[in-house]
């Protein structure tokens, strides 16, 4: 039998207030440590060191060839060189006459990596120029914890030869 009960028990406000006070007290206690770095230039704690070393430079060049153009979708496949060398693919979905969303996928023996981003483009004869940023990044295997920390990409698509060259550059979290 279903009984209508209040979602929050009557003692909940008191509990919440206690928890809130505790959180504020903790934050006040930690505030000096959060607001300013330690004056001494001693070695960082092991956890902080591991986290700092996990953010690395990404410098990746994709050499691809357009395999398929369907409607406003352009799909290219090829190889990736640089930080993560392997096989790569790049997909562009043209939003309108000057912007597009981009998806890339790469894999090698260590795992896979994929990302999505937004780009603007302009067409100059056979070459169209793209530039944008990767908004989300994820992976598997060695790159399971991959995350974008500001990766930008720029590149060209040759509409005559169907050659694509994309350069991804920035910081990423491995």
């Amino acid at each position, binding site marked *: 039998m279903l009984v209508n009960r209040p979602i929050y028990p009557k003692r909940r406000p008191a509990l919440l207030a206690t928890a809130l006070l505790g959180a504020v007290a903790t934050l006040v206690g930690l505030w000096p440590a959060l607001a300013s770095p330690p004056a001494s230039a001693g070695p960082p704690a092991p956890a902080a060191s591991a986290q700092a070393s996990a953010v690395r430079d990404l410098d990746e060049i994709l050499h691809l060839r357009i395999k398929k*153009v369907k409607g406003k979708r352009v799909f290219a496949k090829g190889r990736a060189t640089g930080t993560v060398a392997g096989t790569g693919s790049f997909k562009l979905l043209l*939003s*309108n*006459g000057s*912007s597009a969303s981009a998806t890339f996928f790469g894999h090698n023996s260590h795992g896979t990596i994929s990302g999505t981003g937004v780009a603007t483009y*302009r067409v100059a004869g056979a070459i169209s120029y793209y530039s944008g940023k990767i908004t989300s990044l994820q992976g598997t295997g060695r790159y399971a914890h991959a995350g974008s920390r500001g990766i930008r990409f720029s590149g060209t*698509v040759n*509409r005559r030869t169907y050659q694509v060259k994309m350069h991804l550059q920035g910081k990423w979290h491995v």
Partner: protein
Amino acid sequence: MSRPVLMAIARALPGLSVVLVFLALVPAAAAAPAVSLRATLEPKRLGADTTVSLGFRVAPGPNGELPALSNFALRLPPWMGFAASTLGLSTCSPSTLLLLGAGGCPHESLIGFGSARVQVPFASQVVQETGRVSMFMAKPVDQHTTTLFYFDGRRPVIAPLVLQGELVTPQDSLDSVLTTPIPAIPTASDGPEGAMVAMRVSIGPRRLRYFKRVDGHTVAYRPKGFSIPTTCPPGGFEFVAKLRFRDGTRAGARTAVPCPPPREHGRGRGERR
């Protein structure tokens, strides 16, 4: 009339005269001319590469006035981007067009053609000139894809006209807009400038041929045009034109290419004749 009232009128007279002079100098607010817009797709089939034909026409306002056009902006459906097409594989420049005409541009920079009509007040009558318009791909300006319209004027338009249109995406918008300023149109009459009253242009592969070398032979081929999406939005594919005139008036028009009938969806690649 009492003395204070007379004094008040005397004090207000200079200001009043300024207002009267201003009203005499400024013409009455002109009514905007009527604008019509037309768009067609050929073939009109979902998922097909197509040629887009666009045309606008300016009709005189209620008092017969026809101000000179200073800018036209054409909002295009999202799928009309050059990146997925092979239209305009080369570029042409305004200076080349002005010096050598349309023939001076690389053949692969041609992306469409049509015609335009310019109206010129000539003595007591109005003279019209209809000329051929060619549309070319140009190098980007301010990082925007740029196209050129070339109007080969003869008489009374005494000089060829090059219009430069930039494809821009306004802030907070998903659409791209082809914005084309129109310079003053010089005429033989040495009077008021000409007014562009109509233009139509077809952009796409329907009557275009590019050439490439295959095994030592020159082979003609049709460039890939804009691809119609595989789904049609409610109300069809919408085009919107906004025109600005030299006298400050504005006018707009919209049209939509209706969705292809359902029975055409399942047809093969062959175009219905």
